[in-house]
């Protein structure tokens, strides 16, 4: 099945039939077709805004819960705790938001929409890329909503807009890399519901096994080891550094390297699984 679409057909032999007009160069086509499919994802989000609940209401609940329930006990003051926990909660929300890509893709394949795409003369990965790009909008919502809500309840960024923007870019980039993991899950699992369950189960220890709630050195040794290698910890550290001040270079580098590694491993696997599945 893999060889079906491998290289672009060389233009030898009979000329391409004039059915759909001349085909533009391949790279442009991938971009254009992916963007057309991204538009589709955006329309879907606009039509069913309730699918954004996990990146809007859910993080707000998390913020309220952790800041007001534990803040006093953990940090002595809810306001101090808000400053500590919010950047990390934002990072966590953006990563959780990337899960949805797998669920959506699985649903698309089940409903047969992908059969239609696959019968069209488009690069085979265009629907995948389109979905992943469309979900970047979710990532934007996922950092914008908690920042806004945080500001309303007293959170203040200590740095400047440029570094805040850098924090957001870093989160979105990392979410983009992570979403390929969930695309793979979406390809391997049968039901959209199961995709959600499995993804959540896999993400839970990674997302919570971090210094999101308390500093790393308060944790038992074995957990410290885990938290220190966890890329989401680095993402949280980098975001904290960029929003509140503090070391940025090391955690950001760590995050980018991990992101690149995840992308390099999971994107090809996901594309391969996609080709097998469809």
């Amino acid at each position, binding site marked *: 099945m893999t060889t079906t679409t491998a290289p672009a057909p060389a233009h030898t032999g009979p000329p391409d039939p004039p059915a759909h007009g001349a085909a533009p160069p391949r790279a442009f086509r991938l971009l254009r*077709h992916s963007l057309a499919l991204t538009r589709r994802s955006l329309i879907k989000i606009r039509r069913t805004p309730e699918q954004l609940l996990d990146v809007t209401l859910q993080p707000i609940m998390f913020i309220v819960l952790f800041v007001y329930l534990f803040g006093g006990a953990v940090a002595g003051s809810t306001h101090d705790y808000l400053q500590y926990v919010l950047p990390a909660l934002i990072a966590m929300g953006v990563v959780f938001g990337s899960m949805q890509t797998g669920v959506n893709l699985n649903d698309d394949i089940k409903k*047969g929409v992908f059969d*239609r795409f696959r019968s069209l003369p488009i690069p085979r990965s265009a629907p995948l890329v389109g979905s992943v790009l469309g979900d970047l909008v979710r990532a934007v919502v996922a950092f914008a909503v908690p920042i806004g809500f945080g500001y309303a309840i007293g959170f203040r960024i200590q740095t400047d807009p440029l570094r805040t923007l850098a924090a957001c870019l870093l989160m979105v980039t990392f979410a983009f890399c992570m979403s390929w993991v969930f695309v793979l899950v979406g390809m391997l699992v049968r039901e959209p519901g199961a995709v959600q369950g499995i993804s959540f189960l896999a993400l839970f220890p990674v997302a919570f096994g971090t210094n999101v709630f308390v500093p790393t050195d308060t944790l038992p040794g074995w957990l410290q080891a885990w938290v220190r290698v966890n890329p989401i910890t680095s993402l949280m550290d980098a975001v904290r550094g960029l929003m509140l001040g503090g070391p940025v270079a090391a955690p950001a580098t760590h995050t980018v390297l991990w992101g690149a590694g995840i992308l390099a491993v999971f994107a090809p696997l996901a594309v391969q699984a996609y080709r097998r599945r469809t």
Partner: protein
Amino acid sequence: MTYAFQAEGLVKRFGKTTALAGVDLAARPGTVLGVLGPNGAGKSTAVRILATLLRPDAGRAQVGGHDVIRHPARVRRLVGLTGQYASVDESLTGTENLLLIGALLDLRRAEAKARAAELLARFELTEAADRPARTYSGGMRRRLDLAASLVGNPQVVFLDEPTTGLDPAKREDVWGMIRSLVADGSTVLLTTQYLEEADALADAISVIDHGRVIAHDTPAGLKQIAGRQTIVVRPDPHRLDETAAILEAETGQPAHAPTPGLLTVPASGDAVFAAVVGRLAVAGIGVAELALRLPSLDEVFFTLTGHHDPQRKGTEHKDRQGEDQGEDKDREGKDTNGKAEGFGARLRRRRMERRAAA
């Protein structure tokens, strides 16, 4: 290029299940090939291979002179596919669905818009054009799906059971649309479970069962092979016996009453039907229903294969066995040995048996 599409010796297995065991299909440009068969016969699998969605394990297929395995991209420029399930995006409106396909086919925006409007009008969806497809009825969804497969003016259109699940009026609508497609010069492959549908639309019919083509003929030829038509009469309830006598006198065969008040009798030709109509008129018997009915798929299959009720068999084996591939969960080759006999031989045997019975 004599064939618009052609498949030779297609074999496809899903795990232990053999979906296709060597299928040949072909149609000349501008004609309709009907592929007739029960659930799980391998129809969808064959269509998916021709539409480049699946790779065959063996055999060759070409569309418009392009090999589906070596040049899938070229084939995709020529074909339109309407699957068994309406594969439109439910969140998108009718227009948005068609514009998306247009964009993916590299149409210019204005061109895509014009094409979408034209297709929506043709499929009587203009009023619903700006509503999300999830608000559409089953028939509307099916029409939108059909429209979506036509955005690129495909030379070859694959329609996989386009009328399954539609009520008779909607089915007629779809038939009309298929006819207009062919009138515009497209070649159509139509899979169906209804002989009636294949008869109404197809220039040639391939009957497929257990992943093999067990008959290929014109509709008329197939009906001849498949046995006689049936005269169906629902007369004035008070004159049932009289009607039965007329039927027997004209056809030489006793009439059956499958349900109370309804009489059926095998007819050997149109002439007999005309005679029956004349006799009923002369006798002044009023009828609520009077028809010359084609043999059902079941009857065709019984004649061709000697086993009954492919429908029910199909559903029995419908439960998914592992693979996610292909809606057409094809039956296991349990009686493949029986199949090895070959179509011609089986046909001769059936005829002999019938003659012996008569």
